[in-house]
């Protein structure tokens, strides 16, 4: 199997106010096409692990491979490029830019990647919106749509560069039951139809149960 993401002996400490180990020697990998959920109680370190895996947090010990490539800890510009190209993010909060409309929000990472022309990026963004069933919102200002719709726009933005993996930090945490199910169905569809790899942090057991694989964490360790 093709390993998209591999973590070897990841340790992380918080130094302030006292030295506490939050991640204890974690080693695991995620294969292409897997839909993985990362669960555990509050404070068990699941979000911390996600941010280490996302390359945004570089204050850890151990090695991280994305797509077989070892991630350096110092080169900020290189890591930004990796995030742009290979990782899509969905957070609890949507983080859309109010200055832009929905379509432009989705296009931003694509324009940053600078692999396709503006017209092509626009076309691809429209396709992603269609997959998520919100193409009619394309030209609306991003602060003029509902919360569920915003989260779907954020998913479209995560998809724009065809990332190797989508990482989600409680993407349904702020949504009601109906919208949560909708988001789950979207993730499921991406996994089934597009063989998209997903790693989602959640504390919603009903969400976790329906994924392919559950990584359960407690006190900075992965439970077998």
């Amino acid at each position, binding site marked *: 199997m093709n390993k998209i993401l591999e973590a070897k002996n990841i340790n992380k400490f918080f130094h302030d106010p006292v030295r506490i180990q939050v991640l204890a020697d974690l080693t695991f990998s995620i294969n292409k096409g897997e839909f993985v959920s990362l669960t555990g109680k509050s404070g068990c370190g699941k979000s911390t692990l996600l941010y280490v895996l996302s390359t*945004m947090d570089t204050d850890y010990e151990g090695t991280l491979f994305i797509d077989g490539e070892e991630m350096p800890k110092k080169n900020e510009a290189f890591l930004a490029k990796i995030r*742009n190209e290979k990782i899509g993010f969905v957070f609890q909060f949507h983080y859309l830019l109010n200055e*832009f409309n929905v379509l432009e929000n989705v296009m931003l*990472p694509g324009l940053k990647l*600078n692999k396709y022309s503006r017209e092509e990026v626009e076309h691809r963004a429209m396709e992603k919106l269609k997959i998520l069933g919100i193409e009619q919102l394309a030209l609306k200002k991003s602060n003029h749509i509902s919360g569920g719709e915003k989260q779907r726009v954020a998913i479209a*933005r995560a998809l724009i560069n065809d990332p190797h993996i989508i990482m989600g930090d409680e993407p349904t945490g702020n949504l009601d039951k109906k919208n949560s199910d909708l988001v789950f169905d979207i993730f499921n569809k991406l996994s089934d139809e597009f063989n998209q790899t997903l790693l989602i942090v959640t504390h919603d057991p009903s969400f976790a149960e329906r994924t392919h694989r559950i990584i359960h964490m407690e006190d900075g360790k992965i439970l077998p």
Partner: protein
Amino acid sequence: MRNKLLVSIAKSLLLARWKQTLVAAVGVTFSITMFITLLSFMSGLNDLLDGLILNRTAHVRIYNDIKPNKNQPINSNAAYKNAHNFIGSIKSDASRQAIYNSAAIMETIKKDTRVLGLSPKVTAQVFFNDGSIDITGSIFGINSTEESKLYHFDEYVTAGNSADLDNVSNGIILGKGLADKLLVGIGDAVQITTSKGDRFQLKVVGTFQSGIKDFDNVQSYASINTVQKILSVPKDYITSIQVKLKDITQAPKVAKEYEQLFQTDAEDIQTANSQFETGSSIRTLISYSVGITLLIVAGFGIYNILNMMIFEKMDSIAILKATGFSGNDVKRVFIYIAISIGFFGGIVGLLFGFGLSATIDQIPFNTASLPTIKTYPINYNPKFYMIGIVFSLITTYLAGWFPARKASKIDPVVIIRGK
């Protein structure tokens, strides 16, 4: 492409907060406007004041000074060759005031490539007779065409025509103050007595106002021929040669050279009028420092507004960084914002500055001592506009740099997890 994207992000952020942006830009506009106006006005004034003296003064003046002979007989005595001599009561020698071999000197100077032009001058001390009163004064014999060309003589002739000095025989142009004392106007005759006691009658063809009242009370101009006639001296009698150079800064060097070459005295304009240069440079310094202070204040305004914007846009910066924009990209976005405020504020400032200077240029400014000046003087030197825009870009860049660096250092994890 990459830059275009950053520019478009910068533009959206700017337009989203257009009121703040406007306030920042108005700050820059105001300071650039004042900077341009202040410098144009100050330097116009400088030019005017300098022009009062400097334009009318030769860059190098060649003359024979009245002074004791340097080679006293005792110096030639071989017995005292290595001794120091103290000689009391030396008298200035009676050597003639005229420049020896003036025609040849003038020929040589004319051939010098550094020289713009020269005009010979003959000075005569006379008494103007008005009934029983004698007024001391001097008559300068000049070549009116050369004098007008090099020293703007015609600009100061407020009544009559400077060319009439050559056209009318025995014509004289009196200082305004002198003419008023003598109660004469154009066409009237004035009686003069030379220091040797000869009497002459001259015809007034005009009056002049130099801007310096003391001059106008004692001076007058006639043609060289007329003055030579008054002094009953030959045609080659010239008391000074006024040389104007192409580059005024060369004057001290040229003066020294001529002194050696022609064995006469030569004085440069810097030595003769050092106080003017000091005044000008201090006035310029003051205008620049006021202008730059204004710009720095505007810079702080921009700094504040950008800091506020970064605080408000924390989330946007975090998500930009999460989705692949590097710290450098974020920094650039904010620097673009700052620079565009500086650029557009600055351009408008230049236009307003030009407008305000042009307005000041229209305000009447009449003073008896400056007959040629009708409105406030303004110097429209493009250099000020260049400096203005460059300064506005530099200050806004610096004002933007610190907030931009702060934005580039924002850790997206802290922002996103903090929600």
